[in-house]
């Protein structure tokens, strides 16, 4: 499993990577996961339904992340407002 974070001026960065079945890796993943949530990030897991539809699932704790997920993507939480139109 990889924990990724979207970053302005860079694109995504890998925060942590490991096998959730390996206790040491899992601890590292959990620590990184908590750190991001403490910083106010949202965490999403890209998924695919049985019908083949792609969507995402927002998770609030590492326990909610499906064990077979390949990626968790962190991104800044949504805030109302947007840059003024330039078009």
């Amino acid at each position, binding site marked *: 499993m990889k924990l*990724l974070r979207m970053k302005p001026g860079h694109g995504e960065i890998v925060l942590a990577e490991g096998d959730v079945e390996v206790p040491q890796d899992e601890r590292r993943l959990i620590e990184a996961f908590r750190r991001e949530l403490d910083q106010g990030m949202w965490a999403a897991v890209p998924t695919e339904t049985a019908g083949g539809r792609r969507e995402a699932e927002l998770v609030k704790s590492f326990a909610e992340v499906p064990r077979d997920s390949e990626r968790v993507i962190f991104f800044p939480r*949504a805030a109302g407002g947007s840059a003024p*139109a330039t078009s």
Partner: protein
Amino acid sequence: MVLALGTGAVVLVVLVWELMRPTLKRAVVRLRSSRAAHRLSSASTRYDPGRERRAEQRARALLRSCIAEDDWAMYRDLGFLRVLGGLGDRDTGARAAYAYLIYPHKPIVAYVPETGELLNEYCVAFPDHSKPYGSARLPQSDDVLAKWMALTADERRLIGEANMHLPGRQIEPDRVRRDVVRLAGWERQRDGHRAGSVRTA
């Protein structure tokens, strides 16, 4: 007399110099390190078009890996993504009561697919206040992916966080209407290609 005064002056200057030397040394070190830090920080926050382009390329690759092939083609060809609304019932396809258009760094626009009627603009952003390179804005495709993930995961929550406005607040309604027409044409063309390739097979 003059000699004594001169000697005294020299001794005084040497004494003052010896007393001031450590303070001056520390001040010089501080000045040098602060200049170095300033150089470093301005180098990392200066706008660098190459870095922004690489960031956008990474963001596009991530977006492509998360969304369906058709959705990726839509974004690549048209510059926006359409997500069917319905708070959970997205399998109804074209019969969805409403849908959203996701533009990079612009409000999400809700509209009725059947009629093309524009419903609302939802102004929402994902500012990264740590501003790692001097800006809080994600690359364009990351912004689209963030909106897509939030919408498909928890539509109600995202819409709740957004500022809702009537159409036209930030995006020209005519532009959105044109995009809806472009999207319909794009879908017809894609369906036509598909039907053609099925017949050929």
